[in-house]
């Protein structure tokens, strides 16, 4: 079946470099149901290189204590490592200052922070928030909750049949009552890359702040928050080869400075008395309680790992994989791709005639192939394409053409099971 599509064994990355990259990720050597693991579920969560696993384990073995508290040596060591990770994040996304880098649990918490702090302080009854039909539930539900409470209006920019946003249509949604725009940088369900630069610029020109959900963009695209010009940018560690339980909210300092804290507790205060409490400076004002120290350090290690890669080659290789997978999967009889935007990251969503996505997931798993099946926490996208669910293969730079061949063969077999 793979004979129908061009061979990409002579890919940009080179066979030996790819082999070395794969060796950095110990889990890729696992066997699943007697077959080598083909991990094609990176958009749900990527895997970790040994360097990240080591950073976490070394931290616990040699440096753990609470941060920002003790004068003792270990506490200082932990604080330095934790704040060192913050500086790595700052450099990675090109924020102006570490005061603009807030550690959170993940993208979901980052968006909720903006909704609860910025939203409550700045939005009034009748105000409008513009978002898109492509959003993950994490960038819908926090706004629905806020809208219900404050009497806000959510305005949803439609997508076309290829899963793209029309910038002209988006511009028409920006009105005198628009107080915030919020959208994904990359759609998790379809892989569409949104024209965020223009979307942000159009909002800025009208004085409207913007929040970008960068969860799916950060593992694939170079993100420069200053070049983007957005006011908030949210992402998760676990989708960029780092730990779960850690993520980042970037916020423009002037906005963060004016925002009230959203959770109270230790670390976010300067002084506490029953007569009144004064809050800590940025970024600590938004980091109540003991943070996920080891995971922040693990995220720093993931950034070190990514920064040492030849990003140009990695990016070109991911696109070769995407092209190859697009051709291979769409050549399987009965398969229909969902989401065929001009600009995509390496995510392929599809359905197969006569075979439900959930059955596909089980059949592929029997062959050691991990894909996501379901609505991908983007039920409006499923509704738009009138499908209950899709199967989604999402690729990282450690995936191979051979794994895609196995996917295509297993899909052909799935069709036979139900023939």
């Amino acid at each position, binding site marked *: 079946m793979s004979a129908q599509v061009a061979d990409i064994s002579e890919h940009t990355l080179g066979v030996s470099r790819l082999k070395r990259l794969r060796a950095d990720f110990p889990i890729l050597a696992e066997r699943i149901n007697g077959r080598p693991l083909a991990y094609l579920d990176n958009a749900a969560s990527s895997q970790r290189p040994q360097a990240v696993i080591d950073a976490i384990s070394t931290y616990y073995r040699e440096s753990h204590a609470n941060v920002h508290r003790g004068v003792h040596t270990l506490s200082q060591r932990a604080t330095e490592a934790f704040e060192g990770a913050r500086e790595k994040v700052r450099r990675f996304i090109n924020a102006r200052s570490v005061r603009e880098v807030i550690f959170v649990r993940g993208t979901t918490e980052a968006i909720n922070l903006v909704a609860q702090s910025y939203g409550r302080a700045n939005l009034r009854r009748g105000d409008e928030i513009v978002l898109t039909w492509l959003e993950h539930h994490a960038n819908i539900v926090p706004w629905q909750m806020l809208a219900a409470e404050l009497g806000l209006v959510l305005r949803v920019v439609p997508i076309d049949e290829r899963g793209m946003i029309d910038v002209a249509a988006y511009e028409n949604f920006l009105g005198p009552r628009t107080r915030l725009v919020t959208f994904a940088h990359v759609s998790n369900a379809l892989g569409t890359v949104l024209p965020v630069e223009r979307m942000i610029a159009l909002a800025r020109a009208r004085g409207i702040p913007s929040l970008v959900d960068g969860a799916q963009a950060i593992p694939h695209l170079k993100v420069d928050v200053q070049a983007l010009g957005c006011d908030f940018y949210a992402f998760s560690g676990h989708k960029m080869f780092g730990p779960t339980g850690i993520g980042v909210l970037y916020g423009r300092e002037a906005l963060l400075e004016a925002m009230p804290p959203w959770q109270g507790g230790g670390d976010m205060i300067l002084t506490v008395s029953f007569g009144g409490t004064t809050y800590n400076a940025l970024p600590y004002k938004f980091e109540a309680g003991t943070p996920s120290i080891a995971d922040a350090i693990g995220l720093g290690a993931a950034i070190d790992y990514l920064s040492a890669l030849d990003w140009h080659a990695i990016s070109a290789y991911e696109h070769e994989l995407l092209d190859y997978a697009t051709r291979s999967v769409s050549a399987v009889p009965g398969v229909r791709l969902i989401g065929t935007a001009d600009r995509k990251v390496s995510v392929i969503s599809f359905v197969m005639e006569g075979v439900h996505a959930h059955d596909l997931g*089980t059949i592929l798993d029997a062959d050691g192939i991990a894909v996501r099946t379901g609505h991908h926490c983007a039920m409006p996208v499923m509704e738009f394409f009138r499908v209950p669910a899709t199967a989604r293969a999402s690729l990282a730079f450690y995936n191979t053409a051979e794994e895609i061949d196995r996917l295509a063969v297993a899909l052909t077999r799935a069709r036979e*099971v*139900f023939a």
Partner: protein
Amino acid sequence: MDLKDLYRDVIVDHNRRPRNFGPLASANHVAEGHNPLCGDRLTLYVDVEGDKVADLSFEGNGCAISVASASLMTEALKGRSLAEVRDYFDDVHKLLTERDYTPRRDLGKLAALSGVREFPARVKCASLCWHTLVAALESERQPVSTE
């Protein structure tokens, strides 16, 4: 793990040609079931006469396991007493979740669902219709409009 164990011929057949599929004009109990993990949705229509399930049907959209399970369930329960329906529920529930469970009765074609327990992620697909049935039977008697 053997896919043949999960996708037995009976399951594939009932997925391709679900029995008792569509709304039921005489239904006096109805409930909707939803499995958010995979997007399975089904509506179950039950016509209870006295202490008997005189007729039942379902409609909806789901994976092969959920469709076949609902189809097999409607076939097995038509004409059964409410007490028998409860016994069937217990038997099928244990069949889906307990290793080496021997049903108290001959489950007929429903026994084809025993392969599901080797696939823990799929147990909910097979049990959705049964939980929906319980919800339908517990719901107030409500005449269903079929337009």
